[in-house]
């Protein structure tokens, strides 16, 4: 393939501390050259993608998504999920193992890898189970999973209720230097819970899910991480109390990282008023107070990364009574637009936002897959190009994801991915932009 010049954009690469206007040349799937201002590339033969007024940054990395394959192909497949990811600017996505069968063995992980190589348009990195069958009873063969290429262990959706097993998982995983990711939820407290517990759950007559249900497990996991000295990653943090617990743990030197989703950063429990099942998600949308704490946590690095928890579902899964609807939001294609709403008011600056979507998740994944999340010369040419000012209306008919389940349908967002380049190839391109072939 001919080299491609991304010409005249704002290039932001937190991994190198770069924020310049300039051009980027990619060839043979690698970053070949970065030139400031009007600098001309070192070679004359290339196609041109005009990035005037656009931002070019390392491809986004998502540490938490659900691709539903194998087992729930009516909700999503690797083919549709990776296309949705590309539309959202993600070039690396880490899929959770709550498939059917679950990713608790080498064969299942190999299936994900080969399927994504054949049908995917971005990089898919699997996460393996903590326990066999995600049952929380005995450890999965974590060593074999590690050698098959998983980047972390998690029984996502099923918190590891048994504290002894969680301790064993943390201890055992240390041999492979991979983190254990926990979905923090005390199930005894959240049984049949539908939404955040508080004034709105009372108003709507829905059973609540309290802050405490999350914080109890966060506190337990932090204690176990301290005990074992192992790497812990807290999935989708949603409460002010969890942020405080993680902040304190980091001060003590506990090896913990944490993520927050675009929806928990931008939407409150009030989205549920009217019983919109597309606003039903676990952990639930919380309150303004929590959003404030989450943003503060991002800014002071208590929360390391933004992850989508992209959870596609079929229409039938959501077209029913609120209590019966599945939990989850289809996030890939609205993630950037949602997050950019935090930038104009200075709640988070653009560079921090990009850091949390690129450099930081790359740091958690490590170097196993080469240098990710960077535009350094020689790195894989994974580049996201977006228009920070473009306003658009969310129309789920345009989604590449099979999951149309978003509470943002019909809403106006500002900030849109224009092109996503994965290993030097265009994985997604907005209709508005043309690559000029020289």
């Amino acid at each position, binding site marked *: 393939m001919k080299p491609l010049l991304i010409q005249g954009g704002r290039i932001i690469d937190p991994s190198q501390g770069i924020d310049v206007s300039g051009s980027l040349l990619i060839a043979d799937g690698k970053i070949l050259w970065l030139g400031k201002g009007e600098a001309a590339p070192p070679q004359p033969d290339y196609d041109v993608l005009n990035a005037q007024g656009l931002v070019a940054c390392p491809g986004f990395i998502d540490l938490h998504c659900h691709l539903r394959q194998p087992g729930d192909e009516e909700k999503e497949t690797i083919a549709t999920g990776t296309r949705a990811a590309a539309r959202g600017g993600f070039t690396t996505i880490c899929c959770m193992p709550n498939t059917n069968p679950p990713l608790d063995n080498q064969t299942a992980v190999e299936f994900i890898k080969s399927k994504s190589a054949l049908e995917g348009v971005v990089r898919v990195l699997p996460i393996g189970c903590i326990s066999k069958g995600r049952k929380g009873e005995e450890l999965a063969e974590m060593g074999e999973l590690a050698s098959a290429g998983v980047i972390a262990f998690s029984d996502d959706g099923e918190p590891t209720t048994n504290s002894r097993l969680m301790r064993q998982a943390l201890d055992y995983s240390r041999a492979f230097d991979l983190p254990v990711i926990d979905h923090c939820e005390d199930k005894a407290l959240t049984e049949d819970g539908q939404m955040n517990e508080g004034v*709105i759950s*009372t*108003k709507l*007559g829905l059973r609540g899910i309290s802050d405490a249900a999350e914080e109890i497990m966060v506190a337990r996991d932090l204690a176990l991480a301290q005990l074992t000295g192992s790497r812990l990653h807290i999935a989708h943090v949603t409460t002010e109390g969890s942020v405080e617990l993680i902040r304190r743990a980091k001060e003590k030197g506990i090896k913990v990282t944490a993520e927050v989703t675009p929806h928990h950063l931008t939407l409150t429990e009030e989205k549920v008023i009217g*019983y919109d099942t597309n606003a039903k998600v676990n952990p639930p949308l919380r309150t303004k107070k929590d959003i404030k704490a989450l943003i503060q946590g991002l800014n002071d690095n208590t929360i390391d990364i933004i992850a989508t928890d992209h959870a596609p579902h079929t229409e039938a899964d959501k077209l*029913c*009574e609120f209590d019966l609807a599945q939990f989850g939001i289809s996030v890939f294609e609205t993630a950037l637009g949602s997050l950019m709403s935090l930038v104009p008011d200075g709640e988070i600056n653009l560079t921090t936002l990009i850091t949390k979507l690129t450099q930081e998740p790359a740091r958690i994944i490590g170097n196993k897959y080469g240098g990710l999340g960077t535009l350094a010369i020689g790195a894989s040419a994974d580049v996201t190009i977006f228009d920070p000012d473009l306003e658009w209306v969310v129309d789920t008919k345009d989604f590449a994801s099979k999951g149309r389940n978003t509470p943002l349908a019909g809403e106006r967002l500002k900030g849109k991915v224009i092109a996503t380049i994965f290993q030097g190839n265009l994985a997604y391109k907005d209709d508005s932009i043309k690559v000029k072939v020289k």
Partner: protein
Amino acid sequence: MKTTQQKDNPALQIKPKAPETTIWRHHHILDVDDFTPEEIELVFHTTKAMKEVLSRPIKRVPALRGKTLITLFYEPSTRTRLSFELAAKNLSADVANLSASVSSVAKGESLIDTLSTLQALGADIVVMRHPRSGAPYIATKYIEASIVNAGDGWHAHPTQALLDLYTIHEHKKSLKGLKAVIIGDIMHSRVARSNIWGLTTMGIAVTLCCPPTLLPVGLNEEPHQLPQVNVEPNIELALDRADIVMTLRLQLERQQSGLLPSIREYIQLYQLTEARLARAKPDALVFHPGPINEGIEISPAVAHGPQSVINEQVTNGVAVRMALLYLLAGSQKQ
């Protein structure tokens, strides 16, 4: 021709006419949280007219002639369903009943599909009871017919709240400034939720009295989301100088789920007895939405005593529902 004759026939007219000033803007009746005091007054006014109809030897007016009303009940009900059916028949509507247990719902048909079927069958009004909070709200998105919520999960029971308010209105000169106490399982009660909205909208102060395990969370945090209420777990203190005492049915499974140590202790602490009722005002009214667990939440002496308006609630239920159906029919496109 017939219609004209009926219009001219004074015996078939509903009197008094509704006040011209209040415009009825509800296409559905989902809860009382979106009712203004004026709209509630309009319901009172219309209910009074309906009570006059009910006092006639032939209790029937043609207000809903040609309209089809379907009751769709996913939960058992005696009085609410019967009350709606009688109300609709008194207004000359065609009434059909669908019970979840005997219909294709038992075969796994979804709520949305069932509603589409009712739509296709030409329902103008669907009276719906459902064990899941919010089900009637979801229904409104898939059906053009007016939905009347006859109780959804823990959320709302608007016609119960309106008939309770009407019963108060019949006994008290003015509602504003009265003190109401709601005793029992508030957390799981749609009757309590709708009554909190209805009572406070009419200027009645509400005190909730229950074990803290049965009290919903988030009260008095955001007044624009939920009205201000008082909370008093001690029944003697809660009843002090009350004008209205509302008792709720205690679902016996609350004890099994650990919210109560025992029914025996609940009776000791929260049963409305004559001695406790004596702390309320002498003319205090005693309510219960039924069905009653006599001897649990309320003593038989109080339930059947001089201050009980439990039977009036049932009677007024028909008139209030007639009023609401009448008002709804007027809001529908002809």
